[in-house]
């Protein structure tokens, strides 16, 4: 299930829903991203996140499908927030449940890395000195590409 939303999410409720997904589940891996001061700018107060409605949801569905082909995935949940977010707010949640530990970790990390490099989201950093669009990091691109080997 995929949600792109301005509202905050309840990671606890998401975990409970993942856990409730059948007797074969042995492993649940989750990742939550929080708004962090990148350290590049003075006095960052938060972010503004823009996305491409429709395309975003399609791309994330494709990522979950790909993860499900590569690993045992019993259920996957992705939530990505958009709009204005303050420091330390939750931005993104990825949760995967699987029969096996290694599959849960790999699928969760794959989806998260791909969200950074493939899904049409753009971050603008808001600070005392104004606002500026965040540039894509070479390290994120490299992590995304590493899954293709």
């Amino acid at each position, binding site marked *: 299930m995929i949600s792109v939303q301005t509202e905050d999410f309840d990671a606890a409720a998401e975990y409970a829903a993942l856990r409730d997904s059948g007797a074969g589940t042995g492993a649940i891996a989750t990742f939550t991203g929080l708004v962090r001061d990148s350290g590049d700018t003075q006095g960052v107060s938060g972010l503004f996140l823009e996305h*491409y409605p429709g395309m975003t949801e399609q791309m994330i569905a494709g990522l979950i499908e790909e993860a499900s082909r590569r690993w045992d995935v019993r259920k996957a949940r992705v939530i*990505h927030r958009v709009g204005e977010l303050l420091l330390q707010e939750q931005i993104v949640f990825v949760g995967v449940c699987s029969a096996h530990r290694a599959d849960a970790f790999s699928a969760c990390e794959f989806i998260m890395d791909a*969200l*950074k490099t493939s*899904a*049409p989201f*753009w971050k603008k950093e808001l600070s005392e000195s104004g606002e500026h669009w965040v*540039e894509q990091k070479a390290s994120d691109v490299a992590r995304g590409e590493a899954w293709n080997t």
Partner: protein
Amino acid sequence: MTEQTLTVRFFARLREELGTEQLTLPADGEQTAGDLLAALASRGGPWAQLQGGQPVMIAINQAMAKPGSPVKAGDEVAFFPPVTGG
């Protein structure tokens, strides 16, 4: 003959710098996304950055595409900077 146009959308930094969120352009027969970029860049001013400036990503009908990908009447073509989500 209702579909002889295509929609062009811009996101994030490009949307802001071009001051444009969406355009409707005549669909011009045998055209690629790259042709469309070149035509828009020739408008000059902030539009010039669409060629030879920072990298521009392309989506056609909400799927990632390349400069050589053909565009046709009825398509939704989007141009945007590299993504920075998560």
